[in-house]
C-alpha cells in the first residue's frame, strides 16, 4: 500500500517536473513580453519531430539529432516566433496576439500531421527504463533521471537569472522595461533571450516527455493546457510558482488516476484552476498585482 503510494508519487513528480519546464517557459515569456502563448503545447510537440527528422532523414546519431532538434527549436520557436509573429502583432494588442498564437498552434499541428505523419511515432528514450527499487516502490530509472534532470535545469536557470549580469538584466526588463532601458539594459535583446530560453525549455521538455508517450501531432493540446494551468496555479509571476504548480499537477493527476477516477483525470486541472482563481487568484506563490481593471 505504502509502496504503491510512493510509486505513484515519484512518477507523478517525474511527469510534473517536465510540466514545470514548460510552465516556466510560459511564465518567463509572459513576464518579459506580456505574451500568452497558446501554441505552447505545440512548442513541446514539435521538437520531438525535429529530432525524428534528424534521425531518419539526416541519419544523425541520437545525440546529434537531439542537438539538431534543440538548435532548430531555438531558431524556429524562439527567434522566428519572436521576429515574425510577436513583434509585428504585439502593438495591435494582447487579444490579437493570443488569436495569432492560436492560429500558429493550428499551423504547427497541421504541418506536422501533413508533412510527417498522423500516426504516433515511437521516440527513442534518452535514459534506460529499467525498473529500480526505492524503499519497496518499483520506479523506472527513466522517471528518476527525468526528475533529476529537469530539476537540475530549473536550478541552472535560476542561477543564471539571479547570479549573472544578463540574467539580472532580464529580470529588470521583466519588472519594468522603461526603467531598465533608462539604466542601459538592451531591452530588446533581453526579450529575445527570453523567447530563446522558452524555446529551449520547451525542446528539453519535449525530449524528456515524448519517450513516455509517442510522438504525435496532437500531443500539444493536453500539454499546453497543463502548462498554462500549472503556471496559474503556482503563480504567474514567479519561476518557483511555475515549478510548484507543475509538480503539484503531476502528482495530483497520478493520485487521482490511481485512487479516484481514471475517466475524469483530465478534469482535475480545471477544478484546481477554478479553486485557485476563487481562493487565491495570484497563485500559490505569486504576489498580487493589485489591479482589477
Amino acid at each position, binding site marked *: 500500500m505504502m509502496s504503491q503510494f510512493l510509486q505513484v508519487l515519484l512518477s507523478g513528480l517525474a511527469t510534473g517536473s517536465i510540466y514545470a519546464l514548460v510552465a516556466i517557459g510560459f511564465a518567463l515569456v509572459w513576464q518579459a513580453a506580456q505574451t500568452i502563448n497558446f501554441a505552447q503545447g505545440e512548442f513541446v510537440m514539435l521538437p520531438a519531430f525535429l529530432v525524428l527528422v534528424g534521425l531518419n532523414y539526416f541519419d544523425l546519431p541520437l545525440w546529434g539529432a537531439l542537438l539538431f532538434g534543440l538548435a532548430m527549436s531555438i531558431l524556429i520557436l524562439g527567434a522566428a516566433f519572436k521576429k515574425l509573429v510577436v513583434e509585428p502583432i504585439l502593438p495591435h494588442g494582447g487579444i490579437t496576439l493570443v488569436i495569432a498564437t492560436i492560429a500558429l498552434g493550428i499551423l504547427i499541428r497541421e504541418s506536422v500531421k501533413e508533412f510527417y505523419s498522423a500516426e504516433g511515432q515511437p521516440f527513442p528514450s534518452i535514459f534506460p527504463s529499467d525498473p529500480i527499487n526505492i524503499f519497496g516502490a518499483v520506479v523506472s530509472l527513466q522517471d528518476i533521471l527525468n526528475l533529476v534532470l529537469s530539476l537540475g535545469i530549473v536550478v541552472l536557470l535560476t542561477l543564471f537569472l539571479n547570479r549573472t549580469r544578463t540574467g539580472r538584466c532580464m529580470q529588470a526588463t521583466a519588472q519594468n522595461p522603461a526603467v531598465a532601458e533608462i539604466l542601459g539594459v538592451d531591452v530588446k535583446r533581453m526579450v529575445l533571450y527570453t523567447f530563446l530560453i522558452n524555446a529551449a525549455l520547451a525542446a528539453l521538455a519535449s525530449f524528456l516527455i515524448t519517450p513516455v508517450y509517442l510522438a504525435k501531432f496532437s500531443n500539444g493540446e493536453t500539454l499546453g493546457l497543463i502548462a498554462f494551468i500549472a503556471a496559474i496555479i503556482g503563480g504567474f509571476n514567479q519561476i518557483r510558482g511555475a515549478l510548484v504548480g507543475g509538480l503539484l499537477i503531476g502528482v495530483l493527476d497520478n493520485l487521482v488516476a490511481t485512487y479516484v477516477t481514471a475517466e475524469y483525470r483530465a478534469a482535475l486541472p480545471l477544478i484546481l484552476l477554478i479553486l485557485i*482563481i476563487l481562493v487565491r487568484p495570484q497563485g500559490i506563490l505569486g504576489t498580487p498585482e493589485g489591479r482589477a481593471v
Partner: protein
Amino acid sequence: MAAWLRRILIVALITLAIAAPLGQGNYIIYVMTSWLVFSVAAMGLNLTLGYAGQISLAQASFMAIGAYTTALLTLAGWHWLAAMPLGVLACFVVGFGLGYPALRVKGHFLAFVTLAFNTLVFLVLRNEEWLTGGTYGLVGIPRPNLGLFSTMRSLPFYYFTLTVTIIAALAMWGIVRSPWGRAFRALRENPIRAESLGVDTRRITLLAFAIGSMYGGLAGALIASLVQFIEPGSFGLAHSLRILLMVAVGGAGYFFGPFLGAGVVILLPEILRFTEGYYLIIYAVLVIVMLIFVPTGMIGMWGRIRDRFIARPVARADLQQGAQLK
C-alpha cells in the same frame, strides 16, 4: 456608412439569402444552413470578444450544451420551440457560473477557464453514456414541425434557420444599441474610463459572456436539428478555436463581422478542396498574415480600402485615441 446605404445593403443581403438556395442541390443548401448556424455561434462570441474584450474558448461546448439539451428533449417528444429555450437558458446559467470566478481578476483568466471547460464538457459527453450515448452520440433527432410548415426537407429547414438567425441578429442589434451595449463598447474602448464613469465593468463583462454563451446554445439547438446526429467529437476544442477564428477573420467588434467570418471559414474548405489536407495550414498562415497587417479583420480591410479612395473629414483625430492612461 450612410444610413440609407446600410439599409439598402441589409435588404439586398436578406433578399439574396432568401433567393440563393432556390433550385440548388441539397448539399449546397446544407452548407448554407451551416453557415447560418455558425454565424449565430460567432455572433455570440463576437459579443464576448469584440465588445467585451474577453476570450472565450468554449463556444463549441456551449453549442454542445444547447445541442444535447435540445436533442434529448426532442427525442423525448418535446417540440423544438419548447426544448431550445431550455438549452439556451442552460448555457446562460453555465456561462454565468463559469464566468463568475474567471472574471473576478484581471487578465486572460476566462480564456484558460473556458479552455479547460471545453475539455471537461467533452469528457462528460463521452463518459456519461447513459445520458449522452457516449462516443456513439444521439441519432435521429427530429426537425421542428411548425403545423403547416414542416422542416423535414432541407429547403424549409434553411428558411427556418434563416428566420431564427434574423431574429437572433435583431436581438443582438438591440443589445448592442441599448445602454447596456453602450456600456460594453465603453468597456472595450477604455476600461479605466468606463469604470470611473460608473460602469460596473465586471458585471457587464460577465453578462456579455453569459449572453454570448446563450447564442452558442442557440446555434447548438439548430445544428442538432440540421445534422440530426450529434456526437462529442463535433464539439471539441478545435471547433471552439474555429469559431474564435471566424470572429477574428470577419472583424471582431463589427456587427457583420461574424457573418463574413463564418462564411469564409465554412466556404474556404469548399474552395480550397483541391489542396486536400493542406487547407488548414493555408488557412492558419492566412490568418496570421491578416492579423499582422489588418488586425481588425476583413471588415477592417474594407474600411482601409475605402479610406484610401474616399477621403473623409476627421474631427479632432487627436481625441480618438483617448489619453492613453493605461
